[in-house]
């Protein structure tokens, strides 16, 4: 794992220097939570809106980092032969991609911390009922969505295509998986479609953990499964 701290530090700097990614990762969730909590009305069922929106939007943030920014970075590196140049060094590919992943996860973590801070300071956010489940849901959600992001980044030839593709996977997914609109506000048929998308188990598990409902083992297994399958295909299909 030689050089991993170097690569993580460099990747973080590059993400922060790119105004687009910095905006997406940090400013966007801030705006989202402000817009969503403006009315102050509780959700159908009586849950204060903030207690649903903070965990939901943290999955939104993970989705942005893994499905949009990560594949665009990888594809751009391929397009400009940055990857090829790295392949000619003794750096191990596992280390390089691990470092990439960690850098993007740190951005998502920062976005999540920002959401929690805004929720707690401005909107009287309740503490999570089951913090262990919340953390587990965050990590498993990050792993499963990263698998999909890596798969996109493994095969898409250019950064521009990756961004378009990433956004067209991300937006429908966040809207019908309950990461933007709370599940209880959606119609039954929408919810049924959303439940089939890979983001749904992450949203459900993190909300269950926050509200103190039992987490579904099926949802957690689904996330592990998605991660293993997509990451496996990504490794096989990867093009330098």
């Amino acid at each position, binding site marked *: 794992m030689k050089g991993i701290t170097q*690569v993580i530090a460099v990747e973080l700097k590059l993400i922060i220097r790119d105004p687009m990614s910095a905006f997406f990762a940090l400013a966007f969730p801030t705006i989202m939570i402000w817009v969503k909590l403006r009315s102050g009305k509780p959700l159908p069922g009586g849950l204060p809106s903030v207690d649903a929106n903070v965990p939901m939007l943290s999955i939104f943030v993970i989705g942005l980092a893994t499905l949009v920014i990560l594949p665009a970075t990888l594809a751009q590196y391929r397009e*400009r032969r940055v990857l090829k140049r790295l392949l000619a060094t003794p750096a191990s590919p596992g280390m390089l991609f691990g470092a990439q992943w960690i850098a993007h996860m740190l951005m998502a973590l920062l976005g999540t911390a920002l959401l929690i801070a805004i929720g707690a300071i401005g909107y009287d956010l309740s503490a999570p009922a089951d913090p262990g489940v919340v953390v587990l849901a965050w990590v498993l959600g990050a792993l499963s969505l990263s698998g999909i992001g890596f798969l996109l980044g493994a095969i898409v030839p250019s950064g521009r295509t990756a961004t378009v593709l990433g956004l067209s996977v991300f937006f429908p997914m966040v809207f019908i998986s309950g990461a933007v609109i709370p599940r209880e506000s959606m119609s039954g048929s929408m919810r049924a479609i959303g439940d089939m998308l890979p983001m749904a188990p992450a949203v459900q598990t993190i909300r269950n953990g926050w509200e103190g409902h039992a987490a579904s083992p099926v949802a957690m297994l689904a996330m592990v499964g998605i991660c293993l399958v997509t990451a496996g295909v990504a490794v096989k299909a990867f093009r330098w």
Partner: protein
Amino acid sequence: MTVIEIEGMSKAYKGRQVLTDVSLQVERGEIFGIAGPNGAGKTTTVECMSGLRERDGGVLRVLGLDPQSDRRELLPRIGVQLQEAALPDALKVGEALKMYASFYDKPADWRKLMDEWGLTDRQRSSFASLSGGWKQRLFIALALVGNPEVVFLDELTTGLDPSARRMTWGLVREVRDRGVTVVLVTHFMDEAQALCDRMAIIDQGRVITHGTPGELITQGRTESLEDAYFALTGGQAA
């Protein structure tokens, strides 16, 4: 002492034969040129030597190692500058050198290297802000950061203005004068004549001739290396 030995190397991409029979030797401490028309197989040859591509057949040894099966032992001992490779736009000169140095067990002192190659004043410049000549200077420094015994430079001066080209030639000689063997892929015969101790001309996937630039001129019965090149490849001057 022979540093690189290739005998009958072949390579096809999706049924298209790119290398049919490449054989050549590179000796320690020389600048060895590889020239030839577009699509002749120059880059493929270099990519096979530097472990970036797998050959289909033939013998290939770099520093006594097989770039395919001994890739892990070979990579720390070679340096590479790739054709049209780039770095992320926002990456700064100093950051690039420091990061690449971290990949090697026994790297050169990257600050010293940065100083020697005149990059210290630009250490906080982003890659995107560098001119072509300075980008190539950085790529040469990156190729040297692992203290390699052999460096591969693929079309180092394509796209540079005449003064940047001349400056880059000086850099290549400096690399050799440090005792590093240089394999230089080039399109330009003036460049080959000015820099190469020995060279090979590749056409349609085979080495059609090799020798010192002077020997090639004699072989082609011409005045200049460029005329010899056209005589030997059967190509026409435009």
